């Protein structure tokens, strides 16, 4: 894969096996701001893809485009073979802010996706309780957000994400607002979750270690306008452990990503 100005291209599989398919997508905001410039990639079922880049490189915009929250200027995005035109019920989202409803308990918040579709029955409640246990919140099911730390709230958001019960997960810097220690813990939770559900996940982050640790593939994006600078395969076996980050092979991938980021910055500065 090359660095530099040209957008890296992924071989587009035409056999319909992609879960998420982003084709030549462009997003230009009012006022001429070009946030996403001809980005293309695919995510296969069960794949975990990380997108890294510095702040303002359009990666969050890209995620929102895929989520159907904002409209494309040009190009095509499809999920499960269907074009994305509006927020989809077969996609679950998680953002940097947990956005829990302060008047509801952890389990009630986790149940929200089902409550909104009037399917919050006893079975759903059991499922929510299990998921809360999965993300390490045993004993806090009936606690209100005000009494939960930021990290704990994000875990509730994670459980809520899973309660949507779909296999396409989009996460936009979900752990950016918590401290490093909690972040590492939450990364492990996410790994556990991914393992268990075999979902296809797209994680946007500015933390390269996190990106490499969690993903099967890391996409490096350039600063505005957002283009793909590099795509890095992450071949480590699963289940992954935190100690992996200290290994040499891991560090090399991190360095490669950093190089990709630096070069694209320099190229932008020159050009």
């Amino acid at each position, binding site marked *: 894969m090359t660095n530099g100005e040209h957008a890296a291209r992924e071989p587009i599989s035409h056999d319909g096996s992609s879960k998420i398919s982003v084709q030549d997508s462009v997003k230009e905001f009012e006022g001429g701001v070009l946030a996403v410039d001809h980005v293309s990639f695919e995510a296969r079922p069960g794949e975990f893809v990380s997108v890294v880049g510095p702040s303002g490189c359009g990666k969050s915009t890209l995620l929102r485009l895929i989520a159907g929250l904002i409209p494309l200027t040009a190009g095509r995005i499809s999920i499960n073979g269907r074009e994305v035109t509006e927020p989809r019920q077969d996609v679950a989202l998680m953002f940097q802010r947990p*956005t829990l*409803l302060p008047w509801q308990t952890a389990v009630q918040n986790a149940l929200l996706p089902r409550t*909104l579709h009037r399917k919050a029955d006893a079975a759903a409640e059991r499922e929510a309780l299990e998921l809360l246990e999965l993300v390490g919140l045993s004993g806090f099911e009936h606690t209100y957000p005000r009494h939960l730390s930021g990290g704990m709230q994000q875990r509730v958001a994670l459980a809520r994400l899973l309660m949507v019960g779909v296999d396409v997960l989009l996460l936009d810097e979900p752990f950016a607002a918590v401290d490093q220690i909690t972040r590492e813990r939450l990364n492990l939770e996410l790994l556990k979750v991914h393992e268990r559900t075999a979902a296809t996940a797209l994680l946007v982050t500015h933390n390269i270690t996190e990106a490499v640790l969690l993903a099967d593939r890391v996409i490096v994006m350039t600063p505005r306008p957002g283009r793909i600078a590099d795509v890095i395969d992450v071949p480590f076996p699963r289940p992954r452990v935190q100690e992996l980050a200290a290994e040499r092979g891991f560090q090399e991938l991190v360095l490669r990503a950093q190089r990709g980021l630096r070069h694209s910055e320099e190229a932008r500065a020159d050009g």
Partner: protein
Amino acid sequence: MARVAKRLWPPLLFLVLLLAVWELALALEWVTETILPHPKDIFVSFFDLLFSDIVWDDIAATLWESVAGFVLGAALGLALAIPSGLSPTMRQMLNPYAVALQVTPRIAIAPLIIAWVGFGYSSKIWVAAIIAFFPVYVNALTGILTVDEDAREMFRSLGASRGQTFLRLMVPGSLPVLFAGLKTAAGLSLVGAVVGEFISAQRGLGVLVQQFSSQLAISDAFAVILMLMVLGLLLYGVMEWLERATVFWLHDGRLAARTRRRAARARKKHARAGVTVPKQEEVRT
């Protein structure tokens, strides 16, 4: 009990200071007895009136006018705030009139009110309602307009309908701001009831104040004002209590209690089903 005492002594201390300054003002003749009686005289009048037959019908009348006016005004405020909040066109249509109503002197529209609802409690209730309307309207509107955008996006992403977003997000989210408006309106509705009584009434604390004042029974007049203050505090206190019960998520104590209750209920339910449940963590407040 000790906690109640702890909360009481600051206002009591302030009261003592106030009374001291008051007596000083009279002693130094900054103000004369004809305008401002001694505190002692006012307290004597206060209890004398309460134990007589004179004030109770009037207290009941003014209280009824205030409460009914408050409920009416608040209901109208909510009823107009909701469409205003949800539709910019409605907002542009209604806002100027809401403001105009607020600044119109009540005495100017009093004949209109009387022509419309007649003499009787209704005219006082409507004056109180008009005064109580604006804070509720403005606060409810603000609550709806300042909904958490991230939460709204989250609802959208989960496929919530507009109705669900309104009921499950906007309504609870607006409650804190709304209650601030309700508390303001509660006190104002008392003022409105008295203003209404000045305009036209057979009985009420406003009528009493005028009767006492015109015959120069000044201590009695001030005693009635004291009664009005007590009523005002009472109404405000009721609203505060209601707020704590409704907007429970802003009060640590209430939240912890609810957590405990729910956990206990869940344990009971699962005990019956024979399922073991992890122990609820104690919430540190």
